[in-house]
């Protein structure tokens, strides 16, 4: 086990892309967690935001104000702070969905793969259908129809479709390991189902799930931004990168480029970091590719 771990770390530090991805993720996550400490302003403390400060360009531009490094939006909020707080919303949604949909999907996949039969048929047909409609489409439709906004509802809407990825992957892994010798052996010794599922099947079927998690986190963060951009995502009282870009869009002809460029770049960088990490994990954990190296 420890040898495997060493190998893992060794590979990681040899791959600059993986290091870059991890670095981006760590920096952004830390920024989001420490937002109240590091953000120069609290953009949602209404007492401190002044309409008089609205639409200031970044500090280095003419008319810029050193107090607002990346400029301000039309309400006079500091862009840099709003981005940092916006990352918080992205991460809240991202991790919540990942955990909720992931747990649910893994359990369903585990049960379906292990027991098979009707349970398997029904859940997998549902999964196929949900997959066909795509998470993005379902989330847009659900939120568009529901029209109530709130972080919780956004999380729920994304979960509705997102669990499928985990369930399908989990089921496939379970099917693969189910017939392996040690499982049959455990069965023969009379281990009960629960024990078998939890102790033997789950850990061995998990590696692909880690890959899915990294890819998924990136996808959810993009989706949250898209939903907020379309106006069906988080409420306007929550900072969100997607919403910042949406309101900045009204100003693209006015030349207030900083309203879009900074939140846009943050979003892309964050998702890119996650994808770099996911790519590396996929290669690292994919036995087939490894053999071919």
């Amino acid at each position: 086990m420890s040898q495997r771990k060493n190998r893992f770390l060794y590979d990681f530090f040899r791959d600059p892309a993986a290091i870059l991805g991890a670095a981006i993720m760590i920096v952004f996550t830390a920024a989001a967690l420490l937002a109240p400490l590091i953000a120069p302003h609290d953009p949602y403390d209404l007492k401190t935001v002044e309409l008089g400060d609205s639409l200031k360009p970044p500090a280095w531009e003419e008319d810029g104000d050193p107090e607002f490094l990346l400029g301000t939006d039309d309400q006079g909020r500091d862009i840099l702070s709003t981005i940092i707080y916006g990352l918080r919303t992205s991460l809240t949604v991202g991790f919540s969905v990942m955990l909720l949909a992931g747990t649910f999907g893994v359990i369903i996949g585990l049960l379906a793969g292990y027991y098979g039969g009707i349970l398997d048929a029904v859940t997998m047909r549902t999964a196929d259908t949900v997959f066909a409609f795509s998470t993005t489409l379902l989330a847009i439709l659900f939120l568009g129809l529901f029209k109530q906004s709130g972080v919780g509802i956004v999380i729920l809407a994304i979960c509705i479709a997102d669990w499928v990825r985990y369930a399908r992957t989990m089921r496939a892994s379970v099917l693969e390991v189910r017939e392996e010798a040690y499982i049959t052996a455990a069965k023969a010794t009379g281990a009960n189902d629960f024990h078998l599922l939890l102790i033997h099947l789950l850990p061995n079927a998990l590696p692909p799930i880690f890959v899915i998690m990294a890819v998924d986190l990136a996808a959810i963060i993009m989706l949250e931004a898209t939903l907020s951009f379309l106006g069906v995502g988080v409420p306007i009282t929550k900072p969100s990168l997607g919403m910042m870009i949406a309101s900045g869009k009204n100003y693209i002809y006015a030349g207030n480029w900083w309203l879009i460029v900074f939140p846009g770049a943050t979003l892309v960088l964050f998702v890119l970091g996650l994808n770099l990490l996911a790519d590396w994990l996929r290669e690292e954990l994919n036995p087939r590719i490894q053999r071919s190296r």
Partner: protein
Amino acid sequence: MRIKTVISCIGLILALCGGFIAAEPSFAAPALVVAVESAPRSMNPHSENGDATLGPMTNIFDGLMQRQKSDGKIVPALAEKYEHPDPLTWKFYLRKGVKFHNGNPFTAADVKYTFERLTNPEVSQFVNDGKAIASIETPDDYTVIVKTKDPIPWFIDNMHQVFIMDKESSESRSEGDIGVAPIGTGAYKVTEYVKGSHLKLEANPNYWEGAPPIKNVEMKFITEPSTRFAALASGQAELINGVPVELIDKVKENKNLEVMRRPARRAIFLVVTNRPGTPTADPRVRKAMSMAINEDEIIKKLMRGQASAASQMVDPPTVGYSPDIKRLAYNPQEALKLLKEAGLEKGFEITLAGPNDRYVMDKQICEAVAKYLAKVGIKVNLDVKPKSIYFTEVMENKHDFYMMGWFDGTYSGARTFFRHLHSIDKNAGYGDWNGSRSSDKDIDQVLEKTNQIVDKTQYVKTLQEANKMAMERVRVIPLHYQMDLYAVAKKNGLQFTPRPDQWFVFKDMSKK
């Protein structure tokens, strides 16, 4: 192999030729392209009692009356003249020799048909107006006598927007067809209509006022403000309405463009409940809230100067507007004092609801109001959502503090006051828009008095009195009147004057 290639080549060429032959060019470039901010619901002229539909329709249809471009005065159109012999009777003498676009002559039967059609809520939003009519007589082809159930002094003021349809063709066509292929008497005929996208019009050479000077017009419906501006800036449109205030400086900078403004009729205000048990039941609290809001800054920073501060919920031309009412000045210290007097120096929590897709800068204004109130210790939770769900909630009395924009197309303040200020009375139809379930018996009494008053000056005075009472008691917090903003590309010499009703009437436009 080679034969196959040859055959498929020939096939491809034939298919392309076929495509080109079947293809008919959409028609010559229109002489005028305008980009407008909202699309008509359909080509059924009664499908919406709102300017988005009525504006385009006025070019295709005519009413018995029309409004003059200069001052909005009501003048004859399809009716040559009218008489109002008693409070219930309206007698119209119709213009002779007018023809619909399909060649059918315009007669009294068409007027009767149209008025009767108004009562059908499936196809009309003028049900109010249709049902107010008791009887319609047509003694001959060119005379119509309408009797109303109750006296309606503003009956004639509505006749410019009740567009007359052709009885014969309308009865024989399905509503689906009527909704896409209109047949009117208007100055323009429709050549192409794609719902929500564009409308192409062609001058009607046989128009009873003479053919209009601009021969072809295309209206593009572009709801997104910045895109509408882009259409103008890139020369794809020569005239736009609803210039986004975010871009107003950009338009002014551009030497090829000219901005035209006209005070809009819509007033934006915040409704605050006075229901007992709520913190805002105390008029001092409502007054404090009003004084805490820095409207001048909202106008300067959010509206970019394209609005004027309001002192009441109706605009100056409205019957019932009172010039005596003065706006409460911005004074946060005084507001804090008032809150202290009311025993709320520690502040309180309240939810402000508003739409985010209805009024100019609606969402931003709500956010700004929340900010100002936070500074006097009132914690405001924002509840901003799409208009379809927002207005439903207001009607369902879900909100105690909400944003509203309003004006009445007939210039009657009474209708506005009865809807918004009167206590809810389902049987009488009062308080339909009183979402905050506010109630003030004094104001109710004064308002109800107006129903009995025949004398016009006395009537106006009483309405103004009700208005004044409501504003003194801060039943609503008036914010501002919006500004109608147009931008025109200078190079083509387009002659255009903004109208009070915001309509684009193409027969009144010309090019140098």
